[in-house]
């Protein structure tokens, strides 16, 4: 696999020497996702989620994070997965978008990975439309693939969904 990788990169005329990027990995319905580590402000176990009627379906509600009101977005819904069964523990990753805090509800949070840019590929052309909008590329890891989430898109498309 490593051999292939090098050949690929050389074939594309790319530079093998790259600094790479660090990602916080998270798992949603057994799929690995990554968010640049510097974008993550907080990781916590959400409690007391207040439902917001009439909001877009992916808006799970609002919650209180140390005196700040954070809007929670259910990644399962956003990505088109079935919802987690009632009562199962979820995790929340806090990010910021235009100065507003949002939290992404995920199944569990993984380790921080430092990945070489070379192992990143553009979205496969046959990727689900819903995913293509939010994916910033796919990293080939040893045993699985990690999708990089474009946070702006995740939140903004949610906005569009309300307007529609």
């Amino acid at each position, binding site marked *: 696999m490593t051999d292939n990788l090098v050949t690929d990169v050389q074939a594309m005329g790319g530079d093998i020497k790259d600094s790479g990027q660090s990602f916080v990995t998270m798992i949603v319905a057994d799929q690995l996702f990554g968010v640049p580590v510097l974008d993550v402000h907080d990781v916590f176990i959400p409690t007391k989620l207040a439902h917001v*009627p*009439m909001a877009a379906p992916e808006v799970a509600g609002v919650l*209180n994070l140390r005196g700040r009101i954070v809007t929670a977005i259910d990644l399962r819904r956003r990505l088109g997965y079935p919802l987690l069964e009632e009562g199962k523990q979820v995790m929340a990753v806090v990010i910021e978008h235009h100065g507003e805090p949002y939290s992404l509800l995920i199944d569990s949070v993984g380790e921080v990975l430092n990945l070489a840019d070379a192992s990143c590929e553009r979205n496969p052309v046959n990727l689900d439309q819903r995913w293509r909008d939010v994916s910033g590329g796919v990293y080939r890891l040893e045993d699985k693939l990690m999708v990089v989430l474009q946070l702006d898109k995740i939140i903004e498309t949610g906005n569009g969904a309300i307007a529609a």
Partner: protein
Amino acid sequence: MDDLLNEFLTETNESLDVVDAELVRFEKDPNDKAVLDNIFRLVHTVKGTCGFLDLPRLEAVAHASENVLGKFRDGELQVTTEAVSLILESIDAIKSIMADLEATEKEPEGDDNELIGKLNCVAAGQAPDGGEAIAQTDMLQAEPEPEPVAQETEPDINPTLDRPLRPGEVSLEELEAAFAAAPGPDAEAGASAGNAADDASADIASEAPAAESVASADSAKAPEQPVPAVAPAAKAESEKAEKQGGKSEKAEPSVATQSVRVNVDLLEDLMTMVSELVLTRNQLLQIVRQQEDSEFNVPLQRLNLVTTELQEGVMKTRMQPIGNAWQKLPRILRDLSHELGKKIDLQMSGADTELDRQVLELIKDPLTHMVRNSADHGLESTEGRIAAGKPPVGVIKLDAYHEGGHVIIRISDDGGGLNLEKIKSKALAVGLTSEGELDQLSEQQISNFIFKPGFSTAQEVTSVSGRGVGMDVVRSNIEKIGGTVEVRSEVGRGSVFTIKIPLTLAIVSALVVESCGERFAIPQISVVELVRASSNSEHRVEKLKETPVLRLRDQLLPLVYLSDVLGLEADPDIAVQQDDEADVAAGNDRQPDAKNDDEFVVVTQVGTFRFGIVVDRVFDTEEIVVKPVAPILRDISVFSGNTILGDGSVIMILDPNGIADACGDVKDENDEAALEAANAQDSSEKISILIFNTGSAEPKAVPLSLVSRLEEVECTDIERSNGIDVVQYRGQVMPILRISDSYELRKEGRQPLLVFADETRTMGLAVDEIVDIVEEQLKIELPSDCEGMLGTAVVNGMATEIVDVSHYLVKAFPDWFDENRQERAKSNKHLLLVDDSSFFRNMLAPLLATVGYKVTAVENADRALELRELGNHFDVIVSDIEMPGMDGFDLASEIRSDERWGKTPIVAISSHGTPQDFDRGRSVGFTDYVVKTDRRGLLESIQETLHMEGSAA
């Protein structure tokens, strides 16, 4: 010291510091428009304020540098180091004048003509040549410090600067040597550096460009060194102290001692921490309550008290009456009225409306701008007013009040209104729009151009306004805090600017309610009263068909279920459980299925419109700090914000305005809002309604427009024929209908009749008496299943049955359809009726059906377009103009832009019948335009339209 002056000094010092830093940034990257705009605005503000405080020297200097900046902005002038230095120099000159101002409360003597001359020179596009520059700088050095105090400044500097020079600073001797040695424009820059050394630390940045050319190399690092963030007041003070040295202590620093300027972020952090503290306290209280005789009781009580006070204190630091922002205005207007030669009366009300400090700060400048604009552009000259037959004194009104979770500030003038033609031509000239687009725009949209950057219709640039800064700044500042600004204007009558600011951080009292197991807050300010409704109390929710209403003190109160508005679904378990609790609480032994029996009605008032929100439960009221919702939730109109309650849970705050809109109700227009009515997309329509009694005791009503005449006939003239009562009337036999079969005609005297005429036929409806004719909006609240009735509406404060005239028409002429069948078969045209008012749908649809159209009625444009998507075809579309959401004009353009219905004729019906409306209607593609109540006109128009269509095809 004068408060006004005091504030001016602090503010201007702040602004100037920013300008210093920004200018240096700007010089590095002259293409950064944002930075330039910012500088320009700041200088503009300084200039403006100076003018009002009667500080001609400052104003002149600022005006000259603003001119140069303006040229930069418009791209007429190349950004050069020299020009920027010159502006920095003028900033220094301003600072030095201000220092004197602070010490003596007067502008120092002297003039700055040389500096201004140079600035104007640059503005005119000529570089000031070297020799001249030296001469000028000589002058400059002498000028700003003509007074003895000031003249001592320079020698004083070094002694007061009794500390090692920081990196990047240059000693005065060095500078002077450099000054003497350096030729041409550099020299003048050196001088500016020399001046800048006065305020030793903060001005390092401004010094830099000059120092680069004349002083040591390491000074080039200066801009990178962060400018120390000294509190401006303190800085001003230290500046003064430095200047005066040990010489005199007589002028005690007066600015800094009375108040401390604290960064709002710090307050915000404090607030957050206090909230946390409150939460923790609540938890502790909870724990202790469960243990009796805890030793923590006493200390906890104290903690409780202290926390509450702390919370109140912190909250208080944030609130200020809006009057604080208005204090300056009377003075400003007084001066303005002299300057402009206009007589202006400023009327202010609602000055004690409390606003969050941060919000207040942010709207202060926009407000000043807008009031100045009103005085300058809005009001006509005194002669103009007299010529227009108005009182010579122009009135500018300023109102502030809380409304439904918002603070509304209204600035109105009784001047000439916006000149739409001028705005149009300016918009075209600036390239904001094209000729074609302009035709499509409503007056409202055209008015909104004044909020675009660089837009000013003032003929000449005066020192008051007309530079095109202003309204765009106003708008961007207001939008920054999530507010909106609107302008409504009427030619010859004046304009009204309405600023609506969400109570972003304001503290409000809110009522916490529950519906379907979820809690929500309703701002207390819009809650009128609470009513508990149950089947065995005097108040109960009555349902008329699907519509819930409540009888409240002889009035029918329309109700909305919060769960319906929010689309909540009751969790059956919770509902039952609550019901049980409620049962226990009320001691009732009710049937378990009587679930909706015990409810709370929150009587809510929006404007003049009252309605009830039905909720499951009502908790306490709580003081809450409204926080704006995240942008992705901002489109949901039923929420005005959210907040964290004392127990730490997040709760959404309902916006009564949004709920009123969501339940499709209409609000009464009050007089003040009449100006807005023309443009408001509000479905309220007042029509004349005839009220009469017949048969039962309930009053009945029909729209007057349907009635041809009111007649009385002698009872003896009533004959019976073919099983119905008839009377000979104008050479025809007119059938007389009774409201119901059980109704008896009068036996003697005269029988009053309502005469309806439809096409060629006339018919009389027998009534007992005509009660009244009222002008009111007719909204059928409860549709009726009863034959001959459309439904019930509140008319004249009473529940009134609205009579379905078409029902009686058909009844009077059973042969009606036979007669028309041929015609119908021939035409059998399918007609789409789009109208948001259920009354008109109910009234027009049967009417149109009786004359032979197949009618499909929908309540809004979106539904109409859905039908198009579904592939339906219509021969003619009849659409209302004023509808919520997409209005008739938009609908027509939309229909015309798509080929499916592109050729279908559209007839507009509207309650407004001005020629402009007609023209606009035609221009967007309406085939015809009819006034709504003109029934005959409508029928004729449809027929004609169809006829034309037929002959064209």
